């Protein structure tokens, strides 16, 4: 749809008769930058990661005249010239008042005001302001403000969605805190339970969720875009967070039991544990609450310690992972081995994902899966390489009232 609009609008934009203003719904703005570069979009594009405008579906074209009056909400490309561009009477409507320049808000003042009034809306607004204007440090303040809003009004779906977005943003940054990614999923899920018809919120969960719940493969275009941009002799815009696993996986239309045996390579627990935390493991289950009979997708990510910066030893065996499946869960699909890159030493983020399906007769309550990973890692300080084990747990809630993702 967008390429069609681009083509149709281009002559009017070039003639100065039209401004096309894009608003993109995107958790990761640099992916929208790559998309713009690939599609050669020359419009101004605004980013609405928090869904501040409450757009519930995309794409949506809205035609607005010179006076700021909405003229069409369901314009098709074929209507653009006749029904909008060439409508002279629009010029006579309203005024073209001078617009004052925008200024950055006083964040401290906003927070003080929220604290004084202790209204949910004031805290949510403060969260928005810190997210947008607070820079790298603002993400903590933003998350805290949204939490305060939710404490006052637990049914504020927007606050839940925006807290999820802030937590996910922080989990992808150097300021990440343990549990941020899972917290994002939890709050997106709560938002969707409050507003099940909000498809932008639904898509945010589906982006990271099970293939069975996907309407399409979200970021399949990234590699194609990079290839085409390079063929033009340009460098593709770099992404700070590479889409991996679920984000690029194609959808599945029906449940298929995986024919995967997960080898238990250390059943007696004899391998030394990673007691110094050379590798940080974080698991995220999407969705955080699932109905019986529905799938969850588990993302297990392995990140070398941010402070000590050890190296993966790629001349040894691949990183492997074992997960125990309790009764009532079946494996849908999964990747349990991370193939070593060709370079002898690397420090990349490693992600393994698997899906399991909760049986239709599963009782409500907490489900826990035990797991461990085995890996070869070398200390940066003394170059010593070790074969280590790290145990982890995966947990989620079986809840018959949980929102379904599809």
């Amino acid at each position, binding site marked *: 749809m967008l390429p069609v609009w681009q083509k149709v609008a281009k002559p009017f934009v070039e003639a100065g008769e039209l401004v096309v203003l894009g608003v993109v719904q995107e958790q990761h703005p640099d992916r929208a930058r790559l998309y713009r570069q690939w599609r050669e979009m020359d419009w101004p594009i605004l980013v609405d990661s928090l869904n501040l*405008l409450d757009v519930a579906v995309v794409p*949506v074209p809205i035609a607005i005249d010179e006076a700021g009056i909405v*003229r069409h909400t369901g314009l098709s490309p074929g209507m653009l010239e006749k029904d909008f561009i060439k409508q002279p009477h629009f010029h006579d409507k309203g005024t073209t008042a001078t617009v004052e320049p925008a200024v950055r808000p006083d964040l401290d003042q906003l927070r003080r005001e929220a604290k004084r009034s202790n209204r949910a809306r004031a805290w949510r607004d403060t969260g928005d302001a810190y997210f947008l204007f607070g820079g790298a440090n603002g993400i903590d303040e933003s998350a805290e403000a949204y939490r305060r809003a939710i404490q006052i009004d637990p049914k504020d779906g927007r606050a839940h969605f925006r807290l999820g977005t802030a937590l996910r943003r922080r989990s992808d940054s150097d300021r990440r805190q343990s549990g941020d990614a899972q917290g994002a999923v939890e709050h997106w899920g709560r938002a969707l339970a409050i507003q099940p018809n909000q498809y932008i919120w639904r898509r945010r969960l589906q982006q990271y969720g099970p293939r069975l719940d996907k309407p399409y493969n979200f970021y399949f275009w990234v590699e194609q875009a990079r290839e085409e941009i390079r063929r033009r002799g340009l460098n593709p815009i770099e992404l700070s967070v590479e889409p991996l696993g679920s984000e690029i996986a194609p959808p599945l239309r029906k449940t298929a039991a995986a024919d995967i045996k997960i080898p238990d390579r250390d059943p007696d627990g004899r391998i030394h544990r990673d007691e110094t935390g050379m590798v940080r493991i974080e698991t995220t289950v999407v969705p955080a609450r699932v109905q019986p009979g529905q799938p969850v997708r588990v993302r297990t990510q392995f990140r070398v310690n941010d402070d000590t910066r050890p190296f993966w030893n790629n001349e040894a065996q691949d990183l492997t992972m074992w997960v125990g499946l309790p009764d009532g869960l079946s494996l849908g699909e999964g990747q349990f081995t991370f193939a070593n890159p060709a370079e002898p030493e690397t420090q990349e983020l490693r992600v393994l994902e698997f899906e399991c399906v909760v049986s239709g007769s599963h009782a409500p309550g907490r489900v826990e899966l035990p797991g461990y990973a085995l890996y070869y890692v070398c200390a940066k300080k003394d170059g010593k390489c070790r074969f280590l084990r790290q145990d982890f747990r995966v947990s989620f809630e079986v809840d018959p009232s949980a929102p379904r993702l599809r």
Partner: protein
Amino acid sequence: MLVSMVALAMGGGTALTAGQARAGETPYSRIEVGSPHPDFALPTLDGGFARLSDYRGKKVLLIHFASW
């Protein structure tokens, strides 16, 4: 189409943000043909901010889309 202009809708003031905005509390208010589109400000892909009202005096085609 349901679009609510909540946070960041600005009532003719100069501040960009929610808390200082005269934002409507009505959730999911309709964008109606023949009515003014509420103003809003959002970050641009290039690091600045832009408002709908920055384009007053021109015909604007506002396209909400996603890159996924």
